[in-house]
């Protein structure tokens, strides 16, 4: 059985496989890494580092992009 971890993504708690990386998280959420900026525990993680950044239980992830604004 695969253990799962709880990650807060954009304010909501979600469960992921315990071996997940940030890259896996984007894939599960069906998001194109080129179109979002990833902030992991308050630090920005650039695209080349996503696969090498493991998730741990209790981590907080923010996924942002540009929207209309003044």
């Amino acid at each position, binding site marked *: 059985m695969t253990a799962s971890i709880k990650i807060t993504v954009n304010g909501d708690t979600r469960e992921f496989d315990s071996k997940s990386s940030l890259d896996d998280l984007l894939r599960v959420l069906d998001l194109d890494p080129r179109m979002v900026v990833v902030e992991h525990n*308050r630090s920005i993680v650039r695209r080349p580092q996503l696969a090498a950044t493991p998730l741990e239980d209790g981590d907080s992830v923010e996924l942002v992009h540009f*929207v*209309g604004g003044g």
Partner: protein
Amino acid sequence: MTTSVSAQTDSPLTIGGRAFRSRLMVGTGKYTDNQTMVDAIEASGAEIVTVAVRRVDLDRSQQEGILHHLDPDKFFLLANTAGCFTADEAIRYARLGREAGFNEFVKLEVIGDRETLMPDNVGLIEAATTLVQEGFQVMAYTNDDIVTALRLEDAGCATVMPLASPIGSGLGLLNPYHIRTIKQRLSVPVIVDAGVGTASDACVTMEQGVDGILMNTAIAKADDPAAMARAMRLGVEAGRLAYLAGRMERREVAIPSSPTTGLLD
């Protein structure tokens, strides 16, 4: 012929080492749909276009970000820190915006009051100082206060952006004297940001000698945004040209334009 005086006598607007042709900058918020927004932005002739940084909507993950509609090769996308109430928040948003975007520029907003959306001057100067140290070209949204404007220039901001009137109010230029004072005292470009409601407001604002105007609601909430965008473009150009031309002196007496001699008995 000297029909295009503006092109002959005006220099490009240079901010943080980058030159821009258009002195009108526009936002991308509050449009009813993306096509209306794109049409209006094109009609405005603007090069600098502001965008906001927000969470991706995970429940509707196919919802597109604005980059699907605005070509970053065609427009200079300027990330803002709208919605931030502390220096720390604004710094966080600025960093995310730099990562999401294509340049080191940020339109810095630190709001101090939810009702009036007036800036928090202390937080603004604090955030500007940090962001300048991190290599940002900071375009700081501020109230029309000369002291804050001077502090922001001292902090290294690339441009200072005093308001004409509160964000989204459309009340036009409420204090031309303050805006002129700021323009006269600062060396960096002064861009009036917020409050312009219609083309005459844009024209009067440019006549004060400022370097440009940034607006959003006046175009987005017009009945015909593309038509208002064109009106704003012409208003900005007219005001700029009138400023460069140098207006006549005001006199509180009438002086006839036609000769007073040669009149019939």
